[in-house]
């Protein structure tokens, strides 16, 4: 009898996680949210979702095939990008603009950096930021939800000809017995008309023909599933929401007539979707435990500041992109103490080695071999 002894280096115990598995579960958890979005806006939302996701997948496939980025199509990350992008643009967003946006999201937000794991910014938000700058009118034209006949009729702007201006939806809304105001988001209504929608309506997204995204409560529930399975870091949304809530409460307490109540701020716009699905992108969020709180706190603070004090009604997108850019800095200042290391400030400053550099370590001396730095180009090895 002989026992096989396997000798190898750590790690010896592996968890059952892989990129593909995590991404697959994120897609699963997004499905109810997407279904609700389709339920709200009908076939226009469905078409937008299908077109944008398909564009993302095709773009990803193109870049993986040409060998300029790592990863593979089957890891579902492009699917997530597509779905999140579709959820963050208006349901009546012209389909051709969806194609442009989806392509930019993957090509500019991901492929140029080298594919999955290398991107600096959340790809879906890169796409949306491009759309915001390129098509400011289209991306601000929401339509009312729960319109009669939404499952049989497209929102007219969806089917605009490629490169052409989408038709006005105001006339079409009039036919549906709704005034033009129904096309404004609650945030827009607050910013430009001073109307604050009820927080309960915003939470469920069911309060009549509101121009809102999927219910924040549903998003929280789906996020809770992800967090409970440890596919997502619960601390990031917690930090975003508590920081936004705190800042909004302070401002509300300071001047209740000028600033909306904190619940309105938390449940309007894309704050929940951004906090739970976009800020938590594993590539673009920090890994240190203090860094996570700083990162989330920064997003919450910036969101409220942009919403209240800038010309834009919504600020989640720029807040997250900004925090993405600050992520390496945040990680650097939040490095945990090394186990066993004594944290003394002075020790760092004094030289730990002799100031008299031995001649043998000088680069100028003849026999020193200077290692050549090899920079990997992120490409899969050629077989």
């Amino acid at each position, binding site marked *: 009898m002989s026992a096989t002894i396997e000798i190898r280096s750590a790690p010896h115990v592996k968890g059952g996680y892989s990129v593909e598995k995590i991404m697959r579960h994120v897609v699963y958890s997004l499905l109810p949210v997407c279904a609700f979005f389709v339920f709200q806006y009908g076939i226009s939302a469905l078409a937008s979702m299908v077109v944008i996701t398909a564009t993302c997948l095709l773009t990803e496939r193109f870049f993986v095939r040409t060998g300029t980025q790592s990863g593979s199509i089957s890891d579902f990350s492009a699917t997530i990008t597509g779905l999140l992008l579709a959820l963050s643009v208006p349901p009546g967003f*012209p389909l051709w*603009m969806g194609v442009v946006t989806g392509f930019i999201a993957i090509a*500019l937000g991901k492929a*140029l950096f080298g594919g999955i794991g290398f991107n600096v910014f959340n790809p879906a938000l890169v796409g949306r930021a*491009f759309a915001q*700058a*390129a*098509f*400011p009118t*289209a991306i601000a034209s929401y339509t009312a939800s729960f319109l009669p006949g939404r499952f049989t009729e497209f929102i007219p702007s969806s089917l*605009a*000809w490629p*490169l*052409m*201006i*989408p038709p006005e939806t105001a006339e079409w809304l009039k036919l549906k017995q709704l005034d033009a105001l129904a096309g404004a988001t609650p945030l827009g209504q607050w910013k430009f008309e001073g109307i604050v929608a009820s927080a309960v309506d915003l939470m469920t997204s069911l309060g009549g023909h509101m121009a809102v995204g999927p219910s924040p409560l549903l998003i929280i529930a789906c996020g809770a599933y992800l967090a409970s399975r440890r596919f997502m870091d619960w601390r990031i949304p917690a930090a975003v929401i508590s920081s936004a809530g705190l800042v909004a409460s302070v401002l509300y307490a300071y001047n209740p007539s000028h600033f909306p109540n904190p619940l309105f701020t938390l449940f309007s716009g894309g704050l929940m979707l951004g906090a739970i699905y976009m800020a938590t992108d594993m590539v673009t969020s920090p890994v240190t435990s203090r860094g996570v709180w700083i990162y989330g706190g920064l997003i919450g603070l910036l969101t409220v500041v942009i919403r209240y004090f800038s010309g834009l009604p919504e600020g989640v997108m720029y807040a997250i992109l900004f925090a993405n850019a600050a992520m390496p800095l945040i990680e650097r200042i939040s490095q945990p103490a090394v186990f066993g290391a004594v944290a003394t400030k002075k020790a760092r400053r004094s030289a730990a080695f002799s100031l008299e550099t031995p001649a043998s370590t000088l680069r100028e001396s003849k026999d020193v071999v200077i290692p050549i730095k090899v920079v990997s180009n992120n490409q899969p090895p050629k077989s």
Partner: protein
Amino acid sequence: MTTAVQARNFDEFMEGIWRQNPVFIMVLGMCPTLAVTVSAVNALSMGVATSFVLICSCALVSLMRNVTPKEVRIAVYIVIIATFVTVVDYAIQAISLALYDALGAFIQLIVVNCIILGRAEAHAAKNPPITSMINAAGMGIGFTIGLLSLGVVREILGAGTLFGVSLFGANFQPWVIMVLPPGGFFVLGSWLLLFSWWARRKEVAKNV
């Protein structure tokens, strides 16, 4: 003119257009490249204005190269370049005020365009007038081509027109970002990407 001289002149001319293209290869003069290429007309006029200054100042610098002591050469170059920038400034005002307003401060800023000072220092100061003018003309045309390739893309996407002629009809949805500064960076980046991809491919093909 012998064929050898002709070939050398042709080489001098083509240097700026392709091998040493100021925009795509040397990435010089980025300030006007990004700022005024909102439309093809602006890009073309900027390119022509810069080329004029480049050719004239290279000719004058080259003519004076034997009487210019090296201690004062930069001062001499700057005075010469500034002179021709002033001439261009007046000329554009006389041709079209609308164009003058569209190009704005970037006409005056030709004076600090590093392509021109670079050419004066690196080429015109060491070569006879004809050669340096040929070289400057190549550089100027290369710069104009660079500006134009940005301007064409930005005008088509940003306004749906090319040289003011509508391409897609009145219903075109302009890509606002293309006429804003970020659009300049996007388009320039895309062109640079395309050129380096092409150069890389050529190199790979050569090695195989």
